[in-house]
């Protein structure tokens, strides 16, 4: 996939598409005129140094912040008009850079909280534990356990989420996001705070869930190696703007990227 295969002015709208997205905080332009698109089934990486505006983009997509300018389209629908809680219903799930688990709840409850959306039983059935409550709860529990199994946390299901080691908390967030049955999964620095060995395992996990759940994934990372290893499509940004887009090879040798990561070469 080269530069040419990312149609910025294509006729058909892409699966997930940002056009001219801009966000200011006071006088600081956190994101400026950001444009990129991701096709269904891609595993894409959003890369850039700390403070480049990567997480802001996720917050804009999920409605945590409002847009100043531009459009964010998901399957042709403008996300800007949606409230945060509605974004999930459209098939987008995310994890957080600074973990946002329900610390006091158990590992299993964390996943069940997300998994319950697709298993309807009424309020009255919940209050009386009659009707569909039993089968519904069973379904929620089974689905959640299967996901915990998937990320390797099944044996810690009854532990309080806050007591898990850091790397496991990240895995739990991924499991919780998957419980929403998303089509697009946004992972915010999933490798932050992990050692090399854990990162390698995480790479495997991300590639596996990408395949097994037929997901479209956008990963934020500032570590170049993680993104380079698993993402065939990389968008690189710095100071809120896109500086490069392409395959890992293209990115690796892109002068702007090198400048952003390694600093400018002194020219006499």
């Amino acid at each position, binding site marked *: 996939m080269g530069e040419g295969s990312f149609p910025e002015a294509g006729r058909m709208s892409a699966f997930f598409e940002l056009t001219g997205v801009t966000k200011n905080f006071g006088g600081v332009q956190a994101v400026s005129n950001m444009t990129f698109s991701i096709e269904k089934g891609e595993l894409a990486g959003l890369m850039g140094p700390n403070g480049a505006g990567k997480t802001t983009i996720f917050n804009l997509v999920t409605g945590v912040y409002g847009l100043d300018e531009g459009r964010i389209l998901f399957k042709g629908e403008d996300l800007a008009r949606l409230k945060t809680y*509605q974004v999930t219903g459209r098939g987008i*799930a995310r994890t957080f850079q600074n973990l*946002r688990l329900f610390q006091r709840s158990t590992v299993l409850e964390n996943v069940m*909280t997300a998994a*319950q959306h697709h298993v309807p039983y009424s309020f009255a059935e919940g*209050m*009386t534990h009659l009707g569909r409550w039993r089968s*519904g709860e069973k379904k929620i529990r089974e689905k959640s356990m299967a996901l915990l199994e998937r990320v390797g946390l099944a044996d810690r299901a009854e532990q309080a989420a806050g007591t898990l080691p850091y790397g496991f908390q990240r895995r739990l967030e991924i499991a919780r996001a998957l419980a929403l049955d998303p089509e697009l999964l946004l992972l915010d620095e999933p490798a932050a705070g992990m050692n090399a060995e854990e990162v390698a395992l995480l790479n495997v996990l991300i590639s596996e869930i990408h395949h097994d759940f037929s997901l479209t994934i956008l990963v934020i990372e500032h570590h170049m190696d993680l993104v380079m290893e698993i993402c065939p499509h990389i968008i690189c940004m710095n100071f809120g703007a896109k500086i490069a887009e392409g395959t890992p090879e293209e990115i690796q040798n892109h002068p702007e990227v090198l400048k952003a990561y390694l600093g400018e070469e002194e020219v006499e």
Partner: protein
Amino acid sequence: MSGYTEGIIILLCINAIAAMGVSLLTGFTGIFSLGHAAYMALGAYTTAILTVQHGVHWFPAIVCGGIMAVAVAFFIGVPTLKLMGDYYAIASIGLGEAIRLILENWQSVTRGARGYPGIDPYTTLPVAAAFFVVLAIFMFNLINSRFGRACKACRDDHIAAALLGFHTARIRVISLMISAFYCGVAGALLGGFLSFIQPVMFDMLKSTELTAVVVFGGLGSMSGSLLGTAVITLVTELFRPISQYRMLIYGAVLVVIMVLRPEGIMGNREFLSWVKAPFRRRAG
């Protein structure tokens, strides 16, 4: 059973119903209230007026008392619970005082500060116990259902909860309404127990007692709230002979618990999970 013991048990049931309501809101949804006595007052006065002046049977009247509290909770909750933080706590102080003052001054309807006498003593032990048991079953079921998890999600991290698709403002309002219903029913039962209600019974002190009981029992533990109610109600009753000093003991008990066990008696665990835990470990 002596009338006195019976009275204490009825009072326990009434206080427990109110505490369950506050526990859902404060312990499970994470919203502090300093005005829940207002919902008790609404329930008590609605029921009293319906039974005494309009001859309504006590049972539908109690339900109406609960519904009145729910209606007021809705109008207070919608504007305040959209905001994050402790806005509701502030608003609830205002609500509590406003309701009390309205009851004191709306003489033609509430008979003012002298109180409302002559309420049929419909709250017998079986009635109070039946209300307690049914409402407790509903409440314990509720916290072990989708709604309970939704409340806890809003309490622990409202941004994560919103991103998991929960309409957090709506969940908070519903939680408040349920909590108001419980307090309304508790107030209605209190009226039937004492045959007499007075605005001053539902003052700020009562509100703080409701919240104190829940914190005392452990935020996020329904059985803790019940235990807290039992301890506080019994402490205040047992020391009734030394009437002037019993509030001192009540205060001392609260201080001791908060120093020794700041997370409350039960923490955020339920009584059943303690019973079950050893078996689970063996199985695993």
